[in-house]
């Protein structure tokens, strides 16, 4: 048990190794920590506070201000549904409805098995391919409801065969 706990903090120690006491580095630090842990766990925030001297409420103030940071774990596959203007006028709402129906959850929720999170984002910048979504970093454009469902079914299939 003790060993696992120590392992847990290894990424933290690595990220904080180069910290020089410059508190303006808070946002890049949080970005790196989130990349390592998938989200910002409470114990990591507390540890960051004692390491840097930045108070916990201040860290939380920054973490909750920016939409990139998450205080709860995300699903294994993150679906970022673009809701930029071009996507909106090209029917992003309907794409969202199809994905929600396919996964049985609402927007900005995570499935119970922890496999999928649907997140709405302001704009992915691929407006000429609207409507678009990004799944695990890969952009899928010129979507129809059918195409969006197929992308998700494909991942589900891979998950099942991996088990």
């Amino acid at each position, binding site marked *: 048990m003790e060993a696992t706990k120590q392992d847990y903090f290894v990424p933290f120690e690595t990220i904080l190794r180069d910290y020089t006491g410059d508190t303006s580095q808070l*946002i890049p630090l949080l*970005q790196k920590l989130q990349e390592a842990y998938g989200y910002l766990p409470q114990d990591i925030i507390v540890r960051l506070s004692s390491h840097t001297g930045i108070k916990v409420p201040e860290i939380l103030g920054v973490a909750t201000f920016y939409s990139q940071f998450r205080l709860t774990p995300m699903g294994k596959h993150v679906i970022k549904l673009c809701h930029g*203007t071009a996507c*909106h006028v090209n029917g992003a709402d309907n794409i969202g409805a199809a994905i929600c129906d396919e996964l049985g959850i609402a927007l900005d929720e995570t499935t119970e098995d922890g496999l999928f999170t649907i997140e709405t984002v*302001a704009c992915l910048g*691929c*407006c000429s391919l609207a409507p678009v979504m990004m799944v695990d970093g890969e952009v899928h454009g010129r979507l129809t409801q*059918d195409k969006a469902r197929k992308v998700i079914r494909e991942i589900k299939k891979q998950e099942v065969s991996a088990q």
Partner: protein
Amino acid sequence: MKVIVGLGSCGIAAGGMKVYDKLYELIENTPGMEVSLTSTGCMGMCFAEPLVEIQDDQGSAVYGLLDEKSTAEVFQAHIVQGKPLEKYIVKSETATCADDTFFDKQVRIVLARCGAIDPENLEDALAMDAYKGLEKALTMQPADVVNEVLQSGLKGRGGAGFPTGLKWKFAMNSPSDQKYMICNADEGDPGAFMDRSVLEGDPHSVLEGMIIGGYAIGASEGVIYARAEYPIAVKRLEIAIHQAEERGFLGKNILGSGFDFHIKVMQGAGAFVCGEETALMASVEGQRGMPRIRPPFPAEKGLFGKPSNINNVETLANIGWILRNGAKEFTKYGTEKSKGTKVFALAGKIKRGGLVEVPIGMTIREVIYDIGGGSSSGKPVKAVQLGGPSGGCIPESLFDTLIDYDTLSATGAIMGSGGMIVMDEDNCMVDIARYFLDFTQNESCGKCTFCRVGTKRMLEILTRITEGKGKEGDIEALEVLAEQVRKNSLCGLGQTAPNPVLTTLRYYRHEYEAHIKEQKCPSLQCRSLISYRIDPVLCTGCTICARNCPVHCISGEVRKTHVIDQDICTRCGTCKAVCRFGAVIVE
């Protein structure tokens, strides 16, 4: 022979990597091929992605909308046999094709190298005059550099349109041991991708602008604040910075001039308000991105309390060109009051969407019809939205308006950073206003009460109207709130947040009235106000609608008329989209 694959974000999203890999495989497996395969950034013709350009002794031909199969056909015909395959060509030096007109009216200053060079190869950029402007600037006095930019008439391309030279002059005249040159690459407007394309396609142009600016104002440190959602842009910027340092364009004693300048990239964390300069600086300092009261202006007290100058990506990408060719050359483009060109991200219901650069002073009509080819749906264009959440909708009747800071402001919209979203008859203007208010309300940092609460109240009213629950007096309440939010907000986000509502009220008041008084959405978009039914004459009973309905509310036997249960129907429109007989009617 040179084969170039467009690998900007759009190109990759459309399948550009698959095309690249296919070409790589085909070239490797074919003996005796003397072909150099490279990649480039955005070529501008986003509507035809993925794109491949082939340059040989016949000239250049650009192929569009390729997949693995058509890539193999093009490879066989053009690359192996030297015969261009016309059916996939979208732009050619030798043959004429329908989409040639896309570039006819464009002038490329900012995008000159975008889509023409490999953005990860400095030699490519140097062969097209990168850093020549810097070389020239370093032989001049800083005050003369500022003067040159002032003479060019260049205005900030981020939206507000403040003269860049003047901004530099203030920063130059502010005495300090340390100054900062900041590049605002936090392109937050939904529906805009100009800055991303420039950073991905020609990062050196932005670095060159920053170094020249640093020299002019006397800064030794540069910061690029880039959106976290743009990973490719950040990666290419970092490569470009490294290359520029190796060649002595950046770092200590630049090109032997004695001038030192360093640039670092900081990734934003997702907050629209950080596009505002004082909020951006707070974010670089590691705080919540909230705007500060001005004065003091950043030119006196900016980042870490030191004099700072912030310019947008596109603004900076103009600088090298201006220094290289002279301010006078730049003033040949544009109108009397606004000089140069403007890059627009043309998207929405447009046939040929993409990245376009036009001389300031062109009409909206020319951009939408001559360059963009009109609407993608075949239905008449209804309006164009300029300036994103800070801008407004311009109706078709005003499409002869010149694209210029002053004339656009007179319509109630703004030039903005360059998002240009085309809408057709199917788009409801009340819904568009609600969409933008939803955005600004979400992104309000919360500092000013009118922005924080006022936008929320406006959103509630707009939502109510789109749900058919609008009341007498709602329009007037919106107008009062709009004025209060505009007047009592500290930064641009709040001051301009009412613009989408005010412009739609100005040009499409009848749509608001139809929603409120008749409970009707004239564009048949607002779900609470429409219903779907199946025409018994046209329905063939093919069952496709019933099989695709996400809430299973369509019933009927095979080859018999189907019926929609109105109580369960969510009006998602799937049935209408899948019906092959036009039997689903919305009213």
